[in-house]
């Protein structure tokens, strides 16, 4: 128990150390901008939960949020690949890649939580005291329950996607990696125009971006099943690229 606590403390120390650096200011600014724009975009419904749901599923918010985690990932990797005192304590390349992926996931979760606090703050500011629990527009459940599911799914998908992108950046050249990150970020805006209703799991979208939009499924169970299938697809892609990456001989910097 004591060991676990020390480990948790050390990971928290690492995160706070990193986010106290001046370079993290840009990340915070991007996150704030991502929340402010949809919060000000004239939503007719003042209900708190409706507003939270609206911002979370807004393509602009998601586009900027992903940009923030991508920039953070670049900062993080440029810092960690030079930490020789840590790296020389690991036995092989695969252990180091796993260490980096763990760090990326920790930081992605932290940024997701920060972003959620901003979304809550932005929504409370404009809700005019309307905090009644309301039902989801399509599913027979409270919107707060759906928001909770959406947040958990986002955290899992964010970690998977960031890990995949990190592994791809190892394989690709630097400029190709930057192009990939830009295209992937832009897809949050581009794909948001082609949303239709999903009425069977074989209609599920392969592109993970769709899971950040306000898409209606026939029922909530179908959405959960599609999300699980998408998670397995992302995990499968991650595993394949991971195996490819650890077979390659490459330098850390």
């Amino acid at each position, binding site marked *: 128990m004591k060991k676990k606590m020390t480990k948790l403390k050390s990971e928290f120390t690492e995160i706070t150390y990193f986010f106290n650096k001046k370079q993290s200011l840009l990340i915070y600014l991007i996150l704030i901008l991502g929340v402010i724009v949809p919060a000000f975009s004239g939503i007719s419904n003042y209900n708190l939960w409706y507003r939270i749901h609206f911002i979370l599923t807004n393509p602009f918010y998601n586009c900027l949020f992903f940009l923030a985690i991508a920039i953070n990932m670049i900062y993080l990797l440029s810092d960690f690949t030079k930490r020789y005192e840590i790296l020389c*304590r690991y036995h*092989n390349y695969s252990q180091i890649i796993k260490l980096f992926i763990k760090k990326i996931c920790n930081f992605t979760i932290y940024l997701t939580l920060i972003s959620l606090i901003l979304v809550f703050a932005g929504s409370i500011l404009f809700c005019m005291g309307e905090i009644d629990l309301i039902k989801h527009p399509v599913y027979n459940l409270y919107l707060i329950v759906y928001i909770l599911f959406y947040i958990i799914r986002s955290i899992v998908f964010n970690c998977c996607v960031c890990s995949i992108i990190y592994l791809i950046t190892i394989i690709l050249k630097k400029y190709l990696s930057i192009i990939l990150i830009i295209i992937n970020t832009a897809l949050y805006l581009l794909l948001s125009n082609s949303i239709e209703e999903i009425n069977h799991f074989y209609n599920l979208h392969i592109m993970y971006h769709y899971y950040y939009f306000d898409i209606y499924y026939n029922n909530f169970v179908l959405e959960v099943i599609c999300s699980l299938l998408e998670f397995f697809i992302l995990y499968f892609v991650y595993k394949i690229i991971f195996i490819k990456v650890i077979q390659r001989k490459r330098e850390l910097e």
Partner: protein
Amino acid sequence: MKIDLLNVSKNFKNITIISDVNMKLKKGKIYGFAGRNGTGKSVLLKLICGFYLPSSGSILFDGINYNEKNEFPPNLRALIEKPNFFPDLTGFDNLKLLAQIQNKISDDEILNALEIVNLQDEKDKKYNKYSLGMKQKLGIAQAIMENPDILILDEPFNGIEQSTVEKLIDYLNGIKKSKIIIISTHIRDDLDKLADVVFKFDGGSVVEEKND
């Protein structure tokens, strides 16, 4: 334990930093890398650690090429460039975090390493309150605390007072019997006191200069 560097070269883009280097490093000796700044000493140290891969040639540890297996040489510790310690943690806590990666030493061994570098009285001070010399001492402490078989120290004595340098020289001479120790510095006097064999770096090539 021995390290063989066979025709090792390293290029970055089209610039050759290390050219066709051959070295045989054996247990029981302290090896010194001497040369001006930018002559490739740190690059060769990173090649030995496995952080860089040779553009050509190979580096063998007891006949094993760890680069081919995508592994790093075992039981090697290094002080290369400025270590990145956490500013809000004490010197002791920073070392403890590093020790937890392999979890094979106790707090007493960490304290012992701090004593060797004369940092025992400042162990509870936060890292951001450390002077440049104290930071360097902590960097050395992290490298020696786990009693590695191969110890690599890049410019270890920068900013450290003479009394600690002498204590460290005595310590390194005392432990060298069972280890390969490589020290890189541009200050030749340090190496003359310490190294059994000195390799001089100049323009990408390396010449063995002194063999006691």
